[in-house]
C-alpha cells in the first residue's frame, strides 16, 4: 500500500464530507477511486483508522467509516 493511495483516500473523505453526509461505506471509497486497487484502499483505510484520522461508525449491523473530526460527540 502506497502513501499515495492513503493520500487519495483521505482526499476522498475530505472532499465528500463537505456536505451533510459524513459516513461512508468502505465500498463507496472503492467506487469513488476507480483507479486504485480495492485491497490497497482497504489497507489505507485500516492505517488511517489506526492513526485515528478516520473512525468507524456502526449501527450495530452495518459499519461505516468517517473522518474522526466529524464523529458525533456524546
Amino acid at each position, binding site marked *: 500500500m502506497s502513501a499515495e493511495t492513503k493520500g487519495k483516500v483521505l482526499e476522498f473523505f475530505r472532499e465528500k464530507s463537505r456536505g451533510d453526509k459524513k459516513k461512508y*461505506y468502505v*465500498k463507496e471509497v472503492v467506487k469513488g477511486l476507480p483507479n486504485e486497487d*480495492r485491497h490497497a484502499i482497504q489497507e489505507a483505510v485500516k492505517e488511517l*483508522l489506526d492513526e485515528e484520522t478516520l473512525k468507524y461508525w456502526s449501527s450495530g*449491523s452495518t*459499519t461505516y467509516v468517517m473522518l474522526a473530526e466529524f464523529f*458525533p460527540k456524546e
Partner: protein
Amino acid sequence: MAESETPLLDELEKGEWPSFVKDMKQAAEKKPMAKDLLRQLELSYKEKIGHWKHGGIVGVKGYGGGVIGRYSDRPDLFPGVAHFHTMRVNHPTGWFYTTKALRTLCDIWDKHGSGLTNMHGSTGDIILLGTSTDHLQSCFDDLSDAGFDLGGSGSALRTPSACVGPARCEWACIDSLNICYDITMSFQDQLHRPMFPYKFKIKVSGCANDCVASIARSDFSIIGTWKGKIQIDQKEVQAYAASGLDVQAEVTDLCPTKCMTWDEKAKTLAIEDADCTRCMHCINMMPKALRQGKEKGATLLIGGKAPIVQGALLSTVIVPFMKLEPPYQELKDLILKILDWWDEHGKMRERVGELINRVGMRTFLKDIGLKPAPQMVKNPRTNPYVFFWPEEIKKEVK
C-alpha cells in the same frame, strides 16, 4: 405499599412462564441502570414508540466492532440508561465454561455494566447488556485479562459458532469445535476490522441434524457428513422392531429419498446408499442399529440468512464433500476466496446469498472455480432455457 412505577410491565410477570421483567427487577435491586431500563421500557409500552438511539460507537482501541452503541433519547428522564451499550464477547466454542469462568464474567459485568446478560445471542456470543462509554475500555481490559475477547459486529465476520460436536455427541462427523476455533483464530482481522459489504456468518455442525441451524443462520455452513454405506446391524434393527418401533411407518416411509426398504417377513433392512442424502433421519430413529458410513467429512453450503434487507434464505450446497483435517487449509482458502468475491461484487448491505441470487449460481461457481455437481440442484428446473458460456459454445461447434 407504594404504587408500582411499571404497571404495564407488571402484567408480563403474571402467568406461569419465565418473565424478563422479573429478572430485570431483580437486577434493579442492585443497579439503578436496570431500574431506569424498566422505567424507559414502561414509557415505550405506554407511548408505543421506542426510545433508543443508535450511537455509532464501535468499540475499544484497535477494534471496529464488538460494541453496539445505544443511547436513550430521554436521558433527562432515565439518566441510568443515557448510555446503554452492548458488549459482544466471543463465546468459548461449544459454550463450555467452568463455573469459575462464569463467575468471573459476572463479576466483570457487575463492575462495569448493568449486570444483565443474554446467554447467548443469536450469533452465539455472550451478550453483556448495558454499559456506558467510559467503561468500555476498562471492561474490555478486564475481559482480556480473564482470557476473553470481543466478538464480531457490523460489516464484519461475525463470531463463528459450532455445535457441541465430538465433545458430547456420537454423531459428529467432523471436529466442529476445533474447526470453529481454528476459523476464529485464523480470521481475527476479518472479525475485528469490518471491511465487508455487510455481515458474514460461519457456523459448523457435526452432522445433518444441524444443531446450530447453520443452514438457516449462516452465510457459510459447514455440515458434517459421510461417504459410503450406512453401517447396519440387523440384529439391533430387529430389536427395535421387537420393542415396538414400526420400522416401515417411522423409518423407511419417512426417508426423504425413499432409498430404504424394510422386509417385514425376513426382518431385514436394506439401504440403496447411492440414493441416500445423509439426512440422519434413520440414524436418529435407530442409533443402536445404524451408524454413519466410515469415511467422514463435511458438506459446504452458502447463502443462508434471516430476513433483514431481503427475505430469508437457506444455504445451498457448493461442495458436496470435503475432508476436514487440521490445518483446514483448503477450507480456509475457499472461504477467503468467497469473501473476496463477495467484497468485490456485493452491493452495500447485500449478503452473499442475495448476491448469488442476483448474478446466478453459475457465475458464482465459475468465479470461485467450483465445478457444478448434482448435489447443488435444489429442485427440478422450471425455466426452459439453457445458458452456455460463450467459450462453451465454441467448444461444441466444430
